[in-house]
């Protein structure tokens, strides 16, 4: 049964090949149906693997043969089936299938409908390669593949008019560059691994590392820090998080799939996968925890000040990823993975609900220059879009961490782990949890409650069934997702234990749970007091200095602009000047010199026979003289 694992990757590839070949000829939603079917079948295979794992929880490695063999260095086309990879597979294909279905409705009528699904399937294939790979190099292939798809999908509407196309492609470039910096870290980590252990195979590397390295060994710290750089790029952590908010330029389903539910969690997955290495490097663990916590807090505070419906969710995603990273940094791998799964449910739900809202509002808009993503133009959509509203509410409350929704349990486990090990981190994460409840409630009140603040909001209507069904399914998962790892039962924990060998099972701490629940309720109340009452959204909040700072995102982008982009551009201009004057100049000078010489020499080419003969005779004379002198005269 484990031998089915290559199919998980092959099915999306088959889907994309069909769409690639027939995309132009498929009519209406057919391309989307093909892609959704491919994703669904991959999910079915993942379920079969899950069933197989129940009987044999240690899993297996399925090798399709050697990829690279250089001396003793071998890289195989090997796929790892274990509880961790199958968990990721289920999330990726499950949520992926729902988002594929949703996209059929969302992308309807788009000029590049089929291409969108080709990208989505390609993304699925790459992501599944990433999570099933049995060695770092194969993982890196998937890692780069998802990065490529992210780039393609962020810049999907690169040809929009009115400067928007430029913004979209710039956002795509920004994501690409930020990810490349992280990828460099991952590559360097791989070089270091090969240098130290002579292999990139997970089992070999971890086995050798555990045997040969002591806890706190500099080598382990170095490698894990480099891995962390890769994680900060892919999972949008400090300092490389700036690309994710801009990535919202892509179509909303892509945001939901790639920039909320799956790709951005690859970093968390990488840390959990490389847990044996991180365990050897306590210093890196602390760095990871601090980075995650700071990111969580910073992003949550920024989310409070945004007006763009998707931007709020983008910062929320960064913040929640911070939670996961902090969890794995604390060594609470199960908690991190648990939050990864529930977050995939409710954040994909929130994004798709936001997409549904944007869809509805944009359809209601009658003016061309209308920003359908600005929450200030919304309001009162509760009545006009009931299904979207109720599903959104489920996701929002799950994110806010209200019991008994999914987010409550997963977040609570992280908080408990922090409470037990690092009180400072616990305090910061609790503040973040409060902010989380506040900003998501703020969004809910601005969008769905009160009165419509624009003509478009009055004319908005709910989306079609193909978009609403995935919302309902995800809403159900967001509500009951906590059952995966209920306190006291630890289904997921026991399940993942086969892979992570994490001895410590998270315990339920009533104090922690109580405080966070109370704070979440407080946050919602505060949001109601500030935004829920009439007349909402009419006061200009930008007057407050704090709010300006939040709205301007703490000027992080401006800081980076000053610190890195500005100097880089200056350097580029300098080099360009050097290139234009010195390098090009040398080339041109060479050309001109040749021309001059040719001009001079041309006069000797009279084309007259006598002169040719004279040249021959003169040459003969010179040669003879040289020979004569060479003789010693």
């Amino acid at each position: 049964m484990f031998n089915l694992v290559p199919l998980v990757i092959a099915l999306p590839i088959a889907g994309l090949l069909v769409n690639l070949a027939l995309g132009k000829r498929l009519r209406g939603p057919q391309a989307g149906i093909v892609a959704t079917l491919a994703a669904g079948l991959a999910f079915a295979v993942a379920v079969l693997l899950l069933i197989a794992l129940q009987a044999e929880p240690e899993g297996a490695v399925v090798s399709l043969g050697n990829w690279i063999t250089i001396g003793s260095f071998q890289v195989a086309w090997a796929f790892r089936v274990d509880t961790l990879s199958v968990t990721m597979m289920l999330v990726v294909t499950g949520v992926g299938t729902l988002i594929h279905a949703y996209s059929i409705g969302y992308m309807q009528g788009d000029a590049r409908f089929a291409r969108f699904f080709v990208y989505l399937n390609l993304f699925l294939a790459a992501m599944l390669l990433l999570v099933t790979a049995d060695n770092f190099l194969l993982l890196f292939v998937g890692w780069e593949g998802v990065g490529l798809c992210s780039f393609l999908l962020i810049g999907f509407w690169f040809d929009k008019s009115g400067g928007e196309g430029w913004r979209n492609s710039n956002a795509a470039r920004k994501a690409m560059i930020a990810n490349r910096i992280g990828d460099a870290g991952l590559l360097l980590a791989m070089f270091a691994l090969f240098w130290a252990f002579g292999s990139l195979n997970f089992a070999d590397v971890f086995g050798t590392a555990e045997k040969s390295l002591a806890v706190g060994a500099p080598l382990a710290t170095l490698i894990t820090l480099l891995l962390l750089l890769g994680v900060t790029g892919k999972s949008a952590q400090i300092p490389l998080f700036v690309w994710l908010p801009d990535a919202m330029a892509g179509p909303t389903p892509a945001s939901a799939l790639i920039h909320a539910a799956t790709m951005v969690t690859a970093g968390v997955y990488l840390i959990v996968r490389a847990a044996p290495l991180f365990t050897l490097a306590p210093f890196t663990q602390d760095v990871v925890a601090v980075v995650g916590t700071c990111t969580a807090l910073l992003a949550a505070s920024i989310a409070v000040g945004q007006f763009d419906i998707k931007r709020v969710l983008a910062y929320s995603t960064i913040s929640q990823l911070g939670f996961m990273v902090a969890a794995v940094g604390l060594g609470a791998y199960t908690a991190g993975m648990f939050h990864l799964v529930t977050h995939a449910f409710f954040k994909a739900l929130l994004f798709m609900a936001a997409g549904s809202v944007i869809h509805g509002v944009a359809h209601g808009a009658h003016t061309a220059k209308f920003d359908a993503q600005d929450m200030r133009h919304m309001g009162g959509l509760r009545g006009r879009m009931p299904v979207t509203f109720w599903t959104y509410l489920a996701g929002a409350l799950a994110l806010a961490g209200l019991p008994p929704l999914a987010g409550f349990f997963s977040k609570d486990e992280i908080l408990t782990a922090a409470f037990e090990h690092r009180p400072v981190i616990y305090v910061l994460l609790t503040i973040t949890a409060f902010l989380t409840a506040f900003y998501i409630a703020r969004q809910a009140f601005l969008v769905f409650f009160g009165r419509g603040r624009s003509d478009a909001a009055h004319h908005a209507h709910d989306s079609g069934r193909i978009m609403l069904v995935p919302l309902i399914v995800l809403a159900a998962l967001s509500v009951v997702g906590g059952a995966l790892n209920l306190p006291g039962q630890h289904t997921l924990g026991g399940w993942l234990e086969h892979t992570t060998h994490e001895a410590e099972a998270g315990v339920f701490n009533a104090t922690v749970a109580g405080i966070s629940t109370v704070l979440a309720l407080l946050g919602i109340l505060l949001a109601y007091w500030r935004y829920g009452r009439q007349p909402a959204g009419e006061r200009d909040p930008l007057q407050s200095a704090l709010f300006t700072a939040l709205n301007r995102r703490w000027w992080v982008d401006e800081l980076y602009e000053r610190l890195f982009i500005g100097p880089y551009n200056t350097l580029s201009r300098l080099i360009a000047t050097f290139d234009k004057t010195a390098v090009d100049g040398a080339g041109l000078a060479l050309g001109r010199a040749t021309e001059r010489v040719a001009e001079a020499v041309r006069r000797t080419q009279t084309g007259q026979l006598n002169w040719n003969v004279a040249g021959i005779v003169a040459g003969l004379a010179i040669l003879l003289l040289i020979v004569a002198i060479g003789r010693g005269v």
Partner: protein
Amino acid sequence: MTSLNIAIAGALVLLGVGLYGLLIMRNLIKIVIALQILGKGAILALVAAGAISGQTNLGQSVAVTLIVADTVVAVVGLALAVQVRRRFGSLDVNELSTLRG
């Protein structure tokens, strides 16, 4: 100075005259004549050199080869001259030039 050396010296002078003719002449047929003078010098030099070095017969056999080659040069050159005259109406080699610098 032996008679053989005289022959070598004569060959050199003929060579000089031929080269000079090549440099000076503009008429295609006269250029062929200059080439012929060069050839005579070479034949003479070959035979004389053969005699001097004791390889008389080798020198002579090469000389025969040269005579034939020289004759063919004359034939082809003259044929060329006749055709040039027909095409261009002149035997001046410098007017044939189509390669303008």
